[in-house]
């Protein structure tokens, strides 16, 4: 467990929205090429923590962040590193598949355009990203179709394709399956498992079974603090903390 290479980490992270403290001294590390699940009841700060890593809180004027956030050795908040450069290396998939009315092609092309990838390289990258996300066969016949015409699960896989097209190092996922039916969910999970070999994945989920199905590591948070972190199997079956046990067994939350 100690030999793992740590890709992404936070040390003594604290975050306030206005006067309300949402993260209280969080220290956590995410190993490379592993899937780590963040679990915990609503409002415990899982999504807030996730968003610290790609600097999404830069957009909320009343958020105040302390602590050290590292990607490899790079401090994400120090020096001349811009938020856009951070987001290029740390991609994100959201809870809701973004319903912006664009075509399937345009949706992935957008990120490539933003990042100044030469025009002639884009079609190949888009095709590749769709193949990697296992949605190519379903959409290849009509890439100009509005993305909103796809099913929820397809849209979510398209969002993953949009993220992998940019070759980030880390992919953050904020409850990517919470709006999906079980069949779509299993397809997305299958995809996440396949992405593991190329990316470091951190996924916020409310679904205990999902965490057990896909995550190598699980982190349990409660009221802005990390209660327990460890191998998924151990955390669910032999939790060190009583609270963890109560939560994963569904006694509260």
């Amino acid at each position, binding site marked *: 467990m100690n030999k793992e290479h740590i890709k992404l980490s936070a040390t003594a992270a604290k975050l306030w929205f206005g006067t309300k403290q949402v993260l209280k001294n969080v220290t956590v590390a995410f190993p490379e090429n592993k899937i780590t699940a963040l679990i915990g009841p609503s409002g415990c700060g899982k999504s807030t923590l996730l968003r610290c890593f790609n600097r999404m809180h830069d957009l909320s004027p009343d958020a105040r962040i302390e602590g050290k956030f590292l990607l490899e050795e790079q401090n994400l908040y120090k020096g001349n590193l811009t938020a*856009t450069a951070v*987001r290029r290396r740390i*991609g994100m998939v*959201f809870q809701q598949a973004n319903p912006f009315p664009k075509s399937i092609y345009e949706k992935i092309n957008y*990120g490539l355009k*933003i990042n100044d990838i030469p025009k002639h390289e884009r079609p190949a990258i888009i095709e590749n990203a769709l193949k990697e996300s296992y949605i190519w066969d379903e959409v290849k016949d009509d890439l100009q179709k509005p993305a909103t015409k796809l099913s929820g699960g397809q849209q979510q896989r398209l969002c993953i394709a949009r993220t992998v097209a940019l070759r980030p190092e880390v992919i953050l996922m904020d409850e990517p399956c919470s709006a999906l039916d079980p069949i779509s969910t299993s397809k997305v999970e299958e995809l996440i498992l396949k992405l593991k070999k190329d990316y470091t994945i951190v996924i916020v989920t409310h679904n205990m079974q999902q965490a057990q199905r896909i995550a190598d590591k699980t982190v349990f948070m409660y009221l802005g603090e990390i209660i327990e972190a460890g191998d998924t199997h151990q955390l669910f079956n032999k939790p060190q903390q009583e609270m963890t046990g109560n939560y994963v067994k569904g006694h509260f939350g």
Partner: protein
Amino acid sequence: MQLATREKIDNAAKLLFRMTGLMVIAILAGILLMLLWNTAAFFLKVKPFDFITGTQWNPSGSPAIYGMLPLLVSTSLVTFGAMCIAIPLGIGTASFLSDYAGKKLKSILKPAIEMLASVPSVAIGFLGIVVLGPGIAGMTGQSNGLNALNGAILLAIMSLPTIITVTQDALEGVPNAYKEASYSVGANRWQTLILVTIPAAAPGILAAIMLGVGRAIGETMTVLMATGNVSAFPKGFFHSVRTMTATIAIEMGEVPYQTTHYYGLFAIAAVLFLMTLLVNVVGEYFVNKYRKYQAA
């Protein structure tokens, strides 16, 4: 209080306010009828085609000439100029307010902009005569600066609050998820604004523009004071013009009752009414489309 008494008061209130509501419709219909009636009287004496396309407005000459094209072009020129200034500034300011400005700055700017909307048009006219006029005159070497450009700038100032407020509402109505998705692939604020937020808010922004145009076309006092009021065919922004509204306001006070000239002013008003109605209907259409989009 007795139940019966309460019922009576309730019914009386209902009756009163129903009548107020109906009265609005009656007044609107009355104005429209009056306009149409007098316009019809005018068109019995002057052909509509000559009225619209005639290039000279000289009702006191002999023979009197009733060609409203110079007035129509003046109004269009001033409105067009005003929109050239107000649309980019308005959208820019609204974008700044919705996406860039801090809370503190916003809390000062927003009320200030709304206050600008409540400045009486006469006061804005003063600004045109006292500040803008001499300024333009000095820069162009003309004897006075009362011209189409002056009016356009003032109208731009007057329509800015409407354009800014409605555009800002439209921009802020764009779901956060759209912006976040854009940021998450590495877009900066400017790219997100231009490529995502503004296109998504386009119907609302179009509505804002239409409302601004409507305000500019119908404005009377400011253009009357600032544009010089020469009813010759307008030659450009640096020449004095006389808009439709100014013409009506100037001549209505002096015209003999029920003459062709008198009817002619009503005809101008009817054309003006049609123009603002059209702009408002188009604006409303976009506002509704935008609301539907919001709900979805």
